[in-house]
């Protein structure tokens, strides 16, 4: 899959930029931002998601978790952006409160981060 327009180019590993850091996960070097979001959504893998989930206290990713993760990724690569709140709710047929409860870290730092979507930067 091609990344959406406007995605951030991968920085050189030795760039020294404090806004990003490289971690070795599942035998691969992956660049993350300061909030532990994937720098490049294409660097995501299911194995990386499982490892990050374990780090957040989620030993097993259930079918519900995978459904949320795959919906987020499919929407992102189809539309070039993350789903809006109601698109997420309607697309999954789940309340956002349910998604919040499903992931340690909630919707943003849980679901979205494990799905490898970029860190939303709107006024935070």
């Amino acid at each position, binding site marked *: 899959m091609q990344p959406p327009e406007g995605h951030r180019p991968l920085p050189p590993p030795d760039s020294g930029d404090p806004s990003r850091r490289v971690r070795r996960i599942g035998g691969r070097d992956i660049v993350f931002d300061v909030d532990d979001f994937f720098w490049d959504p294409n660097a995501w893998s299911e194995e990386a998601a499982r490892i990050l989930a374990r780090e957040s206290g989620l030993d097993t990713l259930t079918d519900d978790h995978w459904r949320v993760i795959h919906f987020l990724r499919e929407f992102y690569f189809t539309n070039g952006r993350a789903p809006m709140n*109601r698109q997420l*709710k309607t697309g999954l047929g789940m*309340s956002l*409160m349910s998604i*919040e409860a499903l992931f340690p870290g*909630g*919707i943003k*730092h849980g679901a979205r981060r494990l799905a490898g979507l970029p860190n939303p930067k709107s006024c935070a």
Partner: protein
Amino acid sequence: MNPFIYLDNAATSYPKPREVLESMVETYAHLGVSPGRGGYDRAVEAEAFVHETRKRVARFFNAPDPDRIVFAHNATDALNMVIQGLVAPGDHVVSTRLEHNSVLRPLHHLHLQNVITYDLAPFDGRGFVDPEDIGRRIRPETRLVVVSHASNVLGTVQPIGDIGRICAEHEVPLVVDVTQSAGRIPIHMTEWRASAVAFTGHKGLLGPTGIGGMAVDSETDIRPTRFGGTGVESKSLIHTEAYPHRLEAGTLNLMGIIGLSAGMDYLRQEGIDTIHRRELKLLERLRDGFSKTDGVEIYCTEDLTDHVGVLTVTLRGIEPADVGAILDADFNIAVRTGLHCAPLVHETLGTTPRGGVRFSLGPFNTREDVDSAVSAMAAIARAVE
């Protein structure tokens, strides 16, 4: 599902009064030529409308001179003009930690360029700055004090009269950002002894986005930082020094000025005191409702005497951005989350980097809206327990 409940009026008021929208369309359809740029009657009529609006803004802010009502894109634009147009290399500026980035960033960039130094007065646990503290920070080289009238995060209304008195004693110009107070609390520019008041049209004044400006007193001269066509003294390559054109380059936002004028009409008819009292009653109801919800922390609303209808909370165990998303999708309630472009307020509150959830009331909110917000937050709190 609730009907859509809008509680983000501190970002922009919504909806706009129907009268404002209709006036914008109808007046602009008739008058939408370039004001002050031609000799034909319609252009003269448009210019007369603009001048009449300057007079109305001057009355609204108790400003001394309608010719010194300068239109800008918004308060940020006006604050940039006034800050950059008043300071010179080596100057010092005093402001507060309550400020929005519309003040903090111009000051900080001037500091990074080695033009100015600046000091920020803190606010207390109730959300107020101490005027005497501002006075103590004034030095011989202090050229300017910039203070927001009402905090966009806490809603607290600052003692501008006392700050103005202290600035006058030190003979230092005072610039007041009335972004969150205009349209709710009377603005007494002359009584405050403010040198300039910066405003935006799209919040409490109920106009559209894209229009704002400032009122400048007769003793303050702001150095222009941009130049261009004004419709007057066109033969000269030197930008005119006369107000208001001194600070207005390019064709004015006539549609915005019409909306601003109509917004002030609406406020005059409804009464800003009436609207403010109603919002404060709703704010009290909101605060009291949240205070009964386990896990909700409310900031600086113990005493609502000097407040506008803004309340910020955090909810234990859940990211503010997620609270906002849940309120939006599951409860149809729009709020603003994060740092609210006021990073030092959140730093002081200890809510950095994720910020809080801000509920801000407007003239069209109801008790039912507030009760829905309280119920929704209680449901979210239960879900994340």
